[in-house]
């Protein structure tokens, strides 16, 4: 209490009333939920949860080790491994840690979910193919879905029964995501969809997709969009894999010809799909920025030590810079989760995360190549660490360009973080029908 008395002295009559009021409330302890002390690390409850998670993982995760399949070309094998592990999580109550119990989740906090993810990342278990379903579709369904949709999709999603893909991007529109040309027309109680999608991760293995379509061409481009849940086994869908620079066919082109979707599979309201899509995109950014990567700076340090490269002061400085970048990501993440655990809207750190993560990835993989030296020219099993560093170097483009390019993120930061005026937009209010299309 001595602190409070000293603190009261600090308030002189020069202070504005607002500050005095706030200070009084502080001293009385009347401001709800805000008198906890700063604590950058686990609280006792969080530490207990971490111990619990770690113990369980140590018993189960080693049995489901996926080795290096995720950076080799056996994508089908990787998906099988992901499904097996997700089943185990579900059966033991670890699936959907922060999802409400009514949706089959654990009913825990987002902090617990990230503690579990942190601990899980120390094991070699496969999780990648559920990024779309658990990271993006789940939050969108919970926010915008009907009770019937909740019942039909959420539980199987948590169990890992289904792989989901995202059918948002269209050829030629690039970063102008709202400029969607895929048409959907209502015919009785079904919608008929025609068009083409691209950059669809895991499309060739997916059971369901989330699909953005143009349903009202007379409205401006952000207006007449409708968001669907698409059964990927429907007639009229053709999926063509695209082999990427990493050698893996992770992306696909998806052609939709007279595909019929029941009206019950509209997510949210007809023509209000852009708002629904924003929930998905926000979840996607948070997910990409939220880490969950299969490498760490510590792993790279070990590789450098193994190769006898850490006596080189230049290598040490670059490792130190990587370490310093990784710390900012950790603490930006802590801020994000502090805000969400207090029920507040996260601040600028949300926009910053994805971009900082992409830059960290790029620079660290350059450092990795320098450490590997001539070994960096080898590929896959012929190289050190099963070629994971080369793979990561080449997969940086997914991080830089996916979920809105780095430059799109910078535009958002300019507008929302710095309050710069919106970029002049000539097509915002014109009917979509009249826009120039690529």
């Amino acid at each position, binding site marked *: 209490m001595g602190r409070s008395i000293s603190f009261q002295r600090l308030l002189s009559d020069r202070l504005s009333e607002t500050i005095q009021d706030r200070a009084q409330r502080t001293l009385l302890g009347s401001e709800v939920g805000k008198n906890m002390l700063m604590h950058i690390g686990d609280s006792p409850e969080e530490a207990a949860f971490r111990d619990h998670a770690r113990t369980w993982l140590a018993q189960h995760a080693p049995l489901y080790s996926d080795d290096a399949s995720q950076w080799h070309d056996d994508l089908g094998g990787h998906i099988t491994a992901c499904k097996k592990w997700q089943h185990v999580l579900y059966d033991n109550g670890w699936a959907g840690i922060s999802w409400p119990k009514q949706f089959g989740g654990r009913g825990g906090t987002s902090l617990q979910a990230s503690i579990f993810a942190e601990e899980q990342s120390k094991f070699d278990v496969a999780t990648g193919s559920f990024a779309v379903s658990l990271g993006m579709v789940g939050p969108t369904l919970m926010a915008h879905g009907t009770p019937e949709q909740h019942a039909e999709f959420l539980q199987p999603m948590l169990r890992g029964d289904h792989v989901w893909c995202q059918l948002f991007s269209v050829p030629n529109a690039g970063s102008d995501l709202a400029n969607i040309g895929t048409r959907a027309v209502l015919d009785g109680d079904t919608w008929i969809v025609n068009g083409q999608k691209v950059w669809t991760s895991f499309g060739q293995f997916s059971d369901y997709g989330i699909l953005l379509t143009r349903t009202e061409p007379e409205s401006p481009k952000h207006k007449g969009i409708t968001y669907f849940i698409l059964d990927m086994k429907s007639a009229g869908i053709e999926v063509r894999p695209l082999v990427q620079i990493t050698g893996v066919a992770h992306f696909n082109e998806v052609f939709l010809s007279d595909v019929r979707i029941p009206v019950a599979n509209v997510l949210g309201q007809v023509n209000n799909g852009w708002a629904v899509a924003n929930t998905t995109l926000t979840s996607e950014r948070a997910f990409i920025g939220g880490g969950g990567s299969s490498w760490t700076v510590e792993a790279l340090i070990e590789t450098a030590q193994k190769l006898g490269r850490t006596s080189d002061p230049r290598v*040490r400085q670059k490792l130190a810079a990587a370490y310093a970048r990784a710390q900012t990501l950790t603490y930006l993440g802590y801020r994000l*989760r502090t805000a969400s655990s207090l029920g507040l809207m996260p601040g600028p750190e949300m926009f910053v995360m994805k971009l900082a993560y992409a830059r960290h990835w790029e620079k660290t993989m350059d450092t990795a190549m320098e450490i590997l030296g001539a070994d960096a020219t080898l590929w896959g099993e012929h190289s050190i660490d099963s070629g994971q560093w080369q793979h990561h170097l080449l997969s940086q483009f997914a991080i830089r360009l996916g979920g809105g390019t780095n430059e799109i993120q910078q535009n958002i930061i*300019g507008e929302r973080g710095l309050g710069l005026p919106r970029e002049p937009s000539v097509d915002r209010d014109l009917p979509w029908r009249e826009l120039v299309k690529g």
Partner: protein
Amino acid sequence: MNFDLTDEQNVLADLAQQIFDGLSTIERIVDVQAGDGFDRQLWNELAKAGLLGLCVPEEYGGLAMNAVELSLVLEKQGKTIAQVPLWASSVAAMTLAEYADTALQALVLPNVSDGTTILSVAIANIGANDAMNPSGVATDTDGGVRLVGSKPAVAYAQYAHFVLVSAKRADGSIVLALVDTDARGVTLNAVSGSDLQPQANMDFDVVVPTSHIVAGATSDGRDALRWMHERALVALCAIQLGVAQGSIALTAEHVRTRHQFGKPLSAQQAVAVRAADAYITTEAMRVTTLNAAWRLAEGFDARQDVLVAMYWATEGGHSVVLAGQHLHGGVGADISYPVHRFFLWGIQISTQLGGASQHLARLGKLIAAR
């Protein structure tokens, strides 16, 4: 886990902001620089509000707060580039409170809180500038320790009553001494600094009485020096965080309101993107500084965390003030416009206690050396 500030900390930051915003206007800074460079009116206001005693124990009239609270206040100082020796005085006071004996504390600290005694710290060394390997020479003598040497660019030393000076004995052990600037054998020569704040080179050949030896009187004061050095680094990180924000705020305003080719400058993507990058870097500076300060306040090992924060403050801070200067174009070249002041502060802090490469080299050694 909780990264949020407490209400008490928020009130403190608001209070500091109100004082700095109210007094450290560009007009007053120009006036202060035309005088002796020390904003005494602001110093007195800080004393009245209790902020000079922020890190002084309560029994000596202080608020007994710690590195997190000091960082919050210094951030506000950096935002208004206010010309007061707050960081040096506070770090010296913290070190005395932690290491000095009661008699020395009782002699010095009460007058620190009310602003009548001004303290500074002499951490940097001429040459290679490894804080943990001071160039001053210490020799035990009757009744005290004789210190011989020089310290470059000691903040506000010409106005300080006492300076905490580090020196090394022949056996490698370290002495941390509170040197009276009026003592015989102490010479202070004012030098111009790049941030336009007062500083002085300090030459000394002085016998410091045992009563004024803060650490290392009979043993090695290395831990005390490291303790002080880590807090000094984090204090500079916090000021740099404010400087970066001040630069960005002016820059955002400029590119929003200046029109060329019929639209605001910021409507050029190359401009908006560079500003956004500066913003991202500033957020990285914020979280790493706060984390390092918190670890120090909690008494945890923070060697790596302090270096990480300092790397962002030096490399990152430099890139932010450079972007601010660049985006102002010719307007920034006119020194009647204030943005160059943030650039100068940014440069000063980027080099003051070692540059980015030095911090990285130390961090690299800690995390990777084998």
